[in-house]
């Protein structure tokens, strides 16, 4: 039986006067990969950013409805946003390591959450790098600058940074958009492994990527959730004509 991790209820979202998400309702299953796909401007990144309140920072952004994670509405007054973001990590389209060493990039989150013990820190950084399938490539130069890594390595470093603080949920916003096919394949393989421990939500405009990696797929168009279901079904026999049109290249 599939257990839900995130439940989105009657979610509406505005940038100023523009309504960009229209009454979204669906549940994201635990320890699976859920892809959000749709044409540019459909609101998929906005929806992803609603899941860890990244939109809070944007002027004129307004939201109604609920996003419930583990039974709690993350938009409730009592919620500490920093605790929330510890639980819901995020990796962005363009790898964005800090201009520090590889080690410091991964240790950063652990340090701000109060970890000071050097040995502990080292163990956790190593583990995160291993889990992100990066350790073997960088173990000789942990204190070298992160910005000297290749794009694909930088992206895996960002994943290591995100998982170092042991979140429950990992959000990926077009994680492979700036990577070549080989680096992309490595990230996809990594996602497959990570889903054993994390609930993963990935935004992608790349249909084939959604098809390859996701267990569940949500199709968004013009701010509306057109269809959500198991990826097998969505790609084989979508129920909504708009999904069919998108998959067969007639829109998008």
């Amino acid at each position, binding site marked *: 039986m599939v257990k839900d991790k995130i439940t989105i209820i009657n979610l509406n979202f505005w940038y100023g006067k523009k309504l960009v998400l229209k009454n979204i309702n669906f549940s994201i299953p635990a320890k699976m990969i859920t892809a959000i796909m749709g044409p540019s401007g459909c609101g998929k990144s906005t929806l992803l950013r609603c899941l860890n309140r990244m939109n809070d920072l944007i002027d004129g952004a307004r939201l109604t409805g609920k996003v419930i994670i583990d039974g709690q509405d993350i938009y409730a007054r009592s919620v500490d946003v920093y605790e929330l973001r510890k639980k819901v990590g995020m990796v962005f389209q363009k790898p964005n390591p800090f201009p520090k060493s590889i080690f410091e990039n991964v240790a950063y989150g652990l340090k701000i959450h109060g970890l000071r013990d050097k040995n502990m820190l080292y163990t956790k950084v190593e583990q995160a790098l291993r889990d992100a399938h990066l350790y073997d490539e960088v173990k000789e130069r942990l204190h070298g600058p992160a910005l000297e890594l290749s794009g694909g390595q930088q992206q895996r470093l960002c994943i290591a940074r995100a998982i170092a603080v042991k979140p429950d949920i990992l959000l990926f916003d077009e994680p492979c958009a700036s990577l070549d096919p080989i680096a992309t394949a490595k990230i996809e393989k990594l996602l*497959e492994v990570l889903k054993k421990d994390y609930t993963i939500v990935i935004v992608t405009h790349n249909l*084939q990527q959604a*098809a*390859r*990696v996701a267990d569940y797929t949500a199709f968004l168009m013009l701010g509306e959730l057109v269809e959500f279901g198991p*990826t*097998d079904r969505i*790609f*084989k026999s979508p129920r909504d004509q708009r999904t069919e049109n998108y998959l067969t290249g007639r829109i998008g």
Partner: protein
Amino acid sequence: MFEERLTELKEKLLLQASQVEEMVSKSIKALLERDESIITEILERDEIRVNEREVEIEDLALTILARYQPEASYLRTIMAVIKINNDLERIGDHAVNIAEHAMYLLPRPMVKPLIDLPRMAEIAGVMLKESLDAFSQGDENLAIRVCRKDEVVDGLYDQIVRELLTYMIGDPSTIERALKLILVARDLERIADLATNIAEESVYTVTGDIIRHHRSDK
């Protein structure tokens, strides 16, 4: 993920093949040993399972195509699986036909001792098994040998028809029973043809060459 599902697909197909193979040998066994319980098993259990599995295999093959867009040898493999799946289901149908003919013949006296029919069944069974071996092992030479055996089966079929015709001419009361036996032979001949198809699909999977429709070259 793709590799796992492709393996699952091939395993399901091989499972289907072994069940269908068993159905064919059981149908002939029912006829030879005049055993009604075997017929019941084929009609009430085996056929249903084979049909269900056929749908499962097709569904999984479509899922793999939709989600992973396989290319080159992977694409050929899935194409072959879809066709072999169809062939196997048809073979299952022929086994059911044989079981039904056997049902008619069971309470009636034999027209003649059955000699060529079991031989035909044996060769067709071996062809079926070998065609699947050729597919699963990617053995092109074995596949070509299977295709050649089809001629032996065709020869036996002609011989059985000729022989039974003489019985029918000699004693018209045997016509109905002899006809049933001819139909059984016909089913076996079709099974061998379908095994040949499977062998041809195997060659296509391995080499990308289409060898059907010009058998005389082989």
